[in-house]
């Protein structure tokens, strides 16, 4: 197996061990803790008042526009990282090229700002 893949194998093993450790802690708790079921315990908690309706309902998610903007800039970040490592090789050419890219994306943010997308409704 190549060195590269092996590094990711270690990630998988580590994740398995971490989850295993958590399972052990939870199993340990199962041996100790009491089980005394009462119907009232399993009601939805709303500060002592009976819950009206359910939480799985239509909710206005106010930041969905931010989520769209987020995708834009996250993709930008993915492009910037490999470029950032090689900047020494590219020199001024790379610097100007990426400046143009960043400025264009910044204009997108400015547009959203001017369109009052970034304002709380």
């Amino acid at each position: 197996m190549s060195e590269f893949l092996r590094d990711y194998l270690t990630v998988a093993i580590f994740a398995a061990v971490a989850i295993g450790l958590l399972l052990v802690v939870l199993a340990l708790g199962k041996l100790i803790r009491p089980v005394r079921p009462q119907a009232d315990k399993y009601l939805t908690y709303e500060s002592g008042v009976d819950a009206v309706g359910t939480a799985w309902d239509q909710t206005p998610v106010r930041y969905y526009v931010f989520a769209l903007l987020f995708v834009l800039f996250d993709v930008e970040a993915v492009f910037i990282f490999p470029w950032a490592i090689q900047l020494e090789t590219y020199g001024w050419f790379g610097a100007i090229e990426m400046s143009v890219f960043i400025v264009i994306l910044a204009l997108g943010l400015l547009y959203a700002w001017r369109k009052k997308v970034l304002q709380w409704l």
Partner: protein
Amino acid sequence: MTSSLVLGLELAYWQQSILRSLGILLAVLLPAGTFVYLFLFKMVSFMQSRLGPMEAGPFGSMQLLAEVGKWIQKEDIIPEKADRLLFKIAPYLVVSTVLLTYIVVPFGPDMIFANHDTGIFFALAVSSISTLGVLAAGWASANKFSLMGGLRAAGQLIAYELPLILAVVGVVIQAGTMNMSGIVAAQANGEIFGFDGIGSPYFITQFLGFVIFMIAVQAELAQTPFDMPIAESELVTGYLTEYSGIRFLLFFIGEFAAVGAFGAIAATLFMGGWAVPAAWADLNNNIFNLLGPLILMAKMTLVGGFIFFIRFTMPRFREDQLQKLAWTVLIPLSLVNILATTILKVAF
């Protein structure tokens, strides 16, 4: 090389990995526990003019064990309306991804678990998964407060993930690598305009990036002034409302392990990590496999202490102020930081 000698035992690669995983997990939980005792129990008591825990052990130092014992013996309650599977998975998702960020952090010249070439990228990618766990917890609880808390957490991640990543880009440009060991080496061997007496710790040369990074970390960790996902006076305890006993404890461990993880990452990226400036000592010396973890731990505690100091000093922001700070201040600033770093890097 598929096997090697450890303590006289012939071990296959996966066996070694399991042993090392257990080792690093213990090494992680120890500082997380110290954080809780030192900062959450004692520093906040001092700041608020009260004694804090005093009964369990000398100066209340066994308080943490007492608390864990308390949580473990509590009844496990899953609300009947909850999505049971997701409700159970969520804490694992939070804690395990937080622990995963530790494996790319170098603790010494050879003390690194997985020396990925994309180290910092991996850490940032994995650490943002834990917010998915928080969103899952909020949704699965089938509680309005929980859902609001989960949604706020998601909105917060979206807003502060970007300044965090873009602040790191400045460091990557200056170091010329995403490998965490490489970033440490670049700081130890660097020079500031020809002066190499203290290397080039990036919290000096990337000061703007460092400030943006620390603000974004505060928000990513949902520590006050950015603790709207929990916001006990508005949302009971946000996404944690329906969790009790040991599952609540898992979230709690996750939170403090995350402070430790970001403390370690900030110390590695901006403060030279396990190394001291190369002008002071020969960093390839084997002694640094012993000293390195201690040096990193000291820097980590410094950053962690700072995070908690802010947490107990500032009042909570409003949700709209949070979004506004990220989108209209931090992101433009970090873009400017990238451009400035680029020009300086190419010009000098």
